């Protein structure tokens, strides 16, 4: 038994079963057997699954496109997302508030526009 996807414990046999059901792309295999759906998003298994598809369907590797990479790049906790996003928003707010307070400049600009 050969493990292909370490995040989801997917074996070569499971990938082959998806190909036997008609899957020809990494995206289909990802959806059917979950290879590449784990925290690393296929960084390890993508190449291996591509090789299996190439071998089984006799297609060159160049024709087997990678599956969609989705955000976030690495797993992030909810709390961190909220803290960082709020920090960025506050920073934006601080920058926008400062402009009109620089004596009359903000107003003049508005008038020009």
């Amino acid at each position, binding site marked *: 038994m050969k493990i292909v996807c370490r995040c989801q414990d997917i074996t070569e046999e499971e990938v082959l079963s998806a190909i036997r059901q008609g899957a020809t792309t990494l995206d289909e295999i990802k959806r*059917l057997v979950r290879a590449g759906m784990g925290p690393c998003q296929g960084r390890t298994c993508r190449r291996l699954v591509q090789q299996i598809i190439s071998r089984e369907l006799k297609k060159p590797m160049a024709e087997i496109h990678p599956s969609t990479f989705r955000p976030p790049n690495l797993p992030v906790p909810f*709390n961190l997302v909220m803290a960082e*996003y*709020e920090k960025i928003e506050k920073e934006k707010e601080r920058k926008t508030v400062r402009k009109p307070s620089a004596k009359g400049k903000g107003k003049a600009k508005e008038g020009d526009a």
Partner: protein
Amino acid sequence: MKTSYDAIVIGGGILGVSIAYELARAGMKNICVLEKHYLASGSTGRCGGGFRQQWSTEHNTQLAMDSVKRLEGLEQELEYNCEMFQGGYLILAHTDADVAQFEKNVAMQRRLGLDVNMVDPAEAKKIVPHLDTSLIKKATWCPKDGHINPFLLTQGYANAAKRLGVDVHLWTDVTSIMKKSNVFFVMTNTGFTYQAPIVFNCAGGFAREIGKMLNVDIPVDPYRHEILVTEPVERLWNPMVISFTVGLYARQEANGGVVMGCGDPNEPVGTYVGSSMHFMYDMSKRFTTLFPKLGNLRIVRQWAGLYEMTADAQPILGPVDEVENFYQASGFSGHGLMLAPAVAMYMAKMVTTGEVHPEIQGLRASRFKGMKEVHREKSVV
């Protein structure tokens, strides 16, 4: 290659494959499914995967109840494990207005014969221990609802359909349709033109475009709806939790990841399905409001799909007035997976025996014509 069929189904999502399967099961020969990419590559494969029977309109409730009846035992029939799990649905009422609406819904659902109850916060806490029950006044609970893996259900239907002789053509994009002396000619990007006397439009978010090819207006507007999944953890709770006020749904998958999504009222009409940073923040905020203890759960992936909305958030089913034998099964407004098993059954019955189910009769596209007041389905996230 065979290009002449008795029926052509456009769309390889859950509706397309389930209709093809039910047609073949009802005895129709020569059916084909045309799919632009691969099976479940559109809205089906991007959905939350829940099935519920708790709705505010009778049409939806009845269809959903019939669907769940069909789903029970479907895995054995299809000989495919679809990770079906009847863990229930807990719908949260935060305000007095919610409670009043839900009491009305529950009364209607119970009249139709559904096993559904109003529960108080203490009971809700027992069902979902991580919930912050200080935010809710009541909740409705139906133990027979649940969730299912959309990819596997679609593949299961497709495999069973193929065994009954249905042809599934993947990577085949329909470019135009022509009708001549009662035969539809469906032209595709692969160069083949398929022909059949009956065509089903199950194109989901693209149903309007397919309708346009025959000069039929299918009033369906696609909206992007984002969703994310967390790392797998040990079992937190069984049901799908929904809150219309906070605007979220969350369920734990078979492998342990928590899938959750929410709607954005500012979303424009369109078929764009990219991801946004704002959603990740918004979802985190909503989720931690309801489940404060789970703030350190990690997000693994986020994606988006299309809600194909109609004016009353109920599907468009059955024939259209303008073109004969052009059947619709679209506009499910984000709930195609859970209504598909029943809809497919009734559509197949209608085409093979001519017997029109009352739900299909009531949900035809012609209901929008001259409509002044829309009774909208309220239970939509």
